[in-house]
């Protein structure tokens, strides 16, 4: 009804849309307003570097809910609308143009944005990054007729884009600042296994090197590295990490560069205001302070935040999990281990079919990563959540069911 303060969700993202759906699933029948900067209904981003990039799937296949779902469930949508600020004193969000919208509860799900590469020529036509559907559409247009591609950065986005574009038959060269693929997240040993997959698929890779400048007369023609290599290129795709979109929190003290701080239940220190997804710096009961940029987390945090906006007190203790599809291989990872003391492998790194367990100095399993060895990542969830220190020999033995390593509840 008019005049009622709505539950407002800023960010028509996976986290935001999932929160809206959860509010309805939980039986909330008050006003819900979903505000998004893009002129599109909320969509899932995984396909932007994979199926949608390869032209195998329309964007509609990635919609979080069908476009009519929102009206059908009386979720008011304000797409193509920017929120510039929140006003916690009057409990209002301020839209670009000055309109103010009151809120009863507020969820910030603004996600992250791509880090820009500070290099000369980075604004040349032909230099892209991937965040929005239109980014992928522009890359596809630029690839038409066959292109020489440079991927800058070999994190997950760079590795997936490289894999997709090789599958389409383009020449792909990767320039990566670290010593191997996905080094920062997966470490050298697992990274080299993935590097080998890409090499077999024909990707050229230059490690320990970075872009000095992009060159071209009017559009990209070559990439010059700090190592002095010149790579002829029609298209460059930059994937060098992200930063949380916190600007709207200016003045609240929560606009922190490493994410909006939220407690275990996803509430911020501002009454009635929650955050979920990439933008949230979460106090996780097992991992401590953590900000996660993956699909599953956005979905599950959106769900938990909505429940807690309705008065729930659920501690978000998800073990965190994500996948990456590259060629015919799939990487999965669970948990969180910025560093580890010991890695135990079941399967074979050399054969690129393995599950690796990352243990801390007390032998506690902190993270599990697999390549083409799916089952055991999910089976390690309870070990990670329970901070279990399993027998390494059992972890290494493929015949041991990980579920049997979970101590019985007292």
């Amino acid at each position: 009804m008019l005049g009622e303060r709505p539950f407002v969700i800023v960010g028509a993202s996976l986290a935001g849309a999932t929160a809206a759906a959860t509010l309805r699933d939980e039986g909330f029948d008050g006003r819900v307003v979903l505000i998004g900067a893009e002129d599109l209904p909320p969509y899932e981003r995984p396909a932007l570097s994979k199926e949608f990039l390869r032209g195998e799937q329309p964007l509609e296949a990635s919609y979080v809910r069908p476009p009519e779902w929102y009206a059908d469930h009386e979720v008011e949508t304000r797409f193509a609308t920017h929120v510039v600020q929140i006003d916690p004193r009057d409990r209002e969000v301020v839209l670009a143009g000055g309109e103010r919208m009151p809120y009863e509860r507020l969820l910030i799900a603004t996600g992250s944005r791509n880090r820009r590469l500070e290099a000369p020529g980075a604004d040349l036509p032909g230099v892209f990054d991937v965040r929005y559907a239109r980014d992928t559409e522009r890359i596809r247009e630029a690839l038409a007729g066959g292109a020489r591609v440079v991927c800058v950065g070999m994190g997950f986005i760079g590795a997936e884009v490289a894999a997709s574009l090789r599958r389409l038959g383009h020449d792909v060269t990767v320039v990566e600042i670290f010593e191997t693929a996905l080094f920062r997240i997966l470490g050298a040993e697992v990274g080299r296994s993935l590097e080998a997959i890409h090499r077999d698929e024909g990707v050229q890779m230059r490690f320990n090197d970075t872009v000095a400048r992009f060159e071209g007369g009017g559009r990209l023609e070559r990439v010059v590295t700090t190592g002095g290599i010149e790579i002829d290129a029609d298209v460059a795709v930059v994937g060098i990490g992200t930063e949380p979109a916190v600007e709207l929190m200016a003045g609240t003290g929560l606009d922190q560069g490493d994410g909006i701080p939220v407690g275990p239940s996803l509430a911020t220190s501002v009454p009635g205001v929650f955050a979920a997804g990439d933008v949230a710096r979460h106090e996780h009961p097992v991992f401590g302070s953590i900000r996660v940029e993956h699909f599953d987390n956005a979905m599950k945090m959106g769900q938990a935040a909505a429940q807690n906006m309705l008065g729930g007190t659920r501690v978000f203790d998800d073990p965190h999990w994500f996948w990456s599809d590259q060629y015919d291989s799939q990487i999965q990872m669970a948990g969180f281990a910025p560093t580890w003391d010991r890695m135990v492998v079941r399967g074979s790194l050399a054969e690129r079919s393995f599950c690796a367990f990352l243990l801390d100095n007390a032998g506690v399993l902190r993270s599990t990563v697999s390549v083409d060895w799916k089952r055991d990542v999910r089976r390690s969830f309870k070990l990670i959540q329970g901070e279990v220190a399993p027998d390494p020999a059992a972890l290494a033995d493929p015949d041991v069911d990980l579920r049997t390593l979970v101590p019985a509840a007292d």
Partner: protein
Amino acid sequence: MAEFVTVGTTDEVAEGEAKAFSVNGEEVAVARVDGELVAFSDICTHRACNLANGGEIEGTSIACECHGSVFDMKTGVVIEGPATEPIATFAVRAEGSDLQIGV
């Protein structure tokens, strides 16, 4: 009225496990939950991964090993995304030691 087709024997399906069978062109997974047989489409509605092969069973739910969608094996409904569409469910019964699926 479902026509029951024998696809194998009941001892092929262990408690807490799922096994896929091909019935009239349909890939159907059969699992055993608290002793009771359940049958559902083996194909995840998200990205068409096989559910029985590697799917993680907990209670009456199965989690797809590819992208984590969780379905109720009895009703087919989505418990957790990314899938949004339910999986089909099928009648299933034991006739002596024969495992039969209704299609």
